[in-house]
């Protein structure tokens, strides 16, 4: 009787845990997609406050010219008007979730002005997201220019 009870509890738990785990995986992908879209909107609007919330404190960005910048530098560029986005068309977006880390890769056609220099081109872009204290934050961005 005792073993039957234990078996019943284990079966009930597994029935509860498996769908929960599955739904969390599904939700994570949806959450990342939402945040990814928020980054695009914030960039186009020049909304540095929104980006400040979406980026982790240790966020770093590797730009298309291989330069490395910190969160503070990126936010400052946007606030000072030295970084303005005109277009950011996303294609081939892929989201991969590994527990509390997620990777997004995409192909983006961009038009922006950075430090007074206009830039038009297609980039292969990666963002890495980490769940910190219950919230997904972007910890890294890398862009590589696509050459023909």
């Amino acid at each position, binding site marked *: 009787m005792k073993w039957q009870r234990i078996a019943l509890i284990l079966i009930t738990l597994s029935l509860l845990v498996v769908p929960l785990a599955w739904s969390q995986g599904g939700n994570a992908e949806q959450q990342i997609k939402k945040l990814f879209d928020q980054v695009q909107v914030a960039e186009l609007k020049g909304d540095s406050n929104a980006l400040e919330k979406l980026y982790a404190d*240790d966020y*770093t960005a*590797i*730009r*298309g*010219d*291989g*330069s*490395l910048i910190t969160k503070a530098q990126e936010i400052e560029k946007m606030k000072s008007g030295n970084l303005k986005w005109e277009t950011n068309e996303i294609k081939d977006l892929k989201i*991969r979730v*590994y*527990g*509390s*880390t997620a*990777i997004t*890769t995409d*192909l983006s056609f961009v038009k922006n002005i950075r430090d007074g220099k206009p830039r038009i081109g*297609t*980039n*292969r872009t*990666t963002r*890495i997201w*980490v769940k910190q204290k219950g919230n997904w934050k972007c*910890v*890294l961005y*890398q*862009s*590589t*220019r*696509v*050459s023909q």
Partner: protein
Amino acid sequence: MKPRFVIAMLVVLAVAVPASMLAQQNSKAEKEVRAVLDEIQKAVLKGGVEAAAFFDKYNADDFTLIGPNGAVQTKAENLEGFRSGKTGYQKMDFSDVKVRIYGNTAVVTGIVKFIGEQAGVKYNDNQYRFTRVFVRQGGIWKHVLIQNTRITP
């Protein structure tokens, strides 16, 4: 001993002990990841079937490589490049390597200098800013992503 003091000590311990354990775990993980990076360098320089066998083990099934021209390679394409000799390097030097550990994921950034060829792209001792992401799967730190961006003056 006053109950308030005991409670305060317990609170301090509850915060400090897990933080210290996490720091130790991260330090151990960072050493492991740096060791894997050394092994990667050796395997790449050996090239051929030896490199293919190594990356068959250390690249995850969903591995993606974004080359400096923006071209994307899968694990199968990457291994085939080594096997066929279309991918081969004579030099691969890492510098400015930074490892960040987030639980079972490691994000490694740095600069790499290559001499060699990969998928039709020739590397002539230029500098690239790289990101490598490793995820711990089955007790092994496996590569899930590499991206290289050329540093232009």
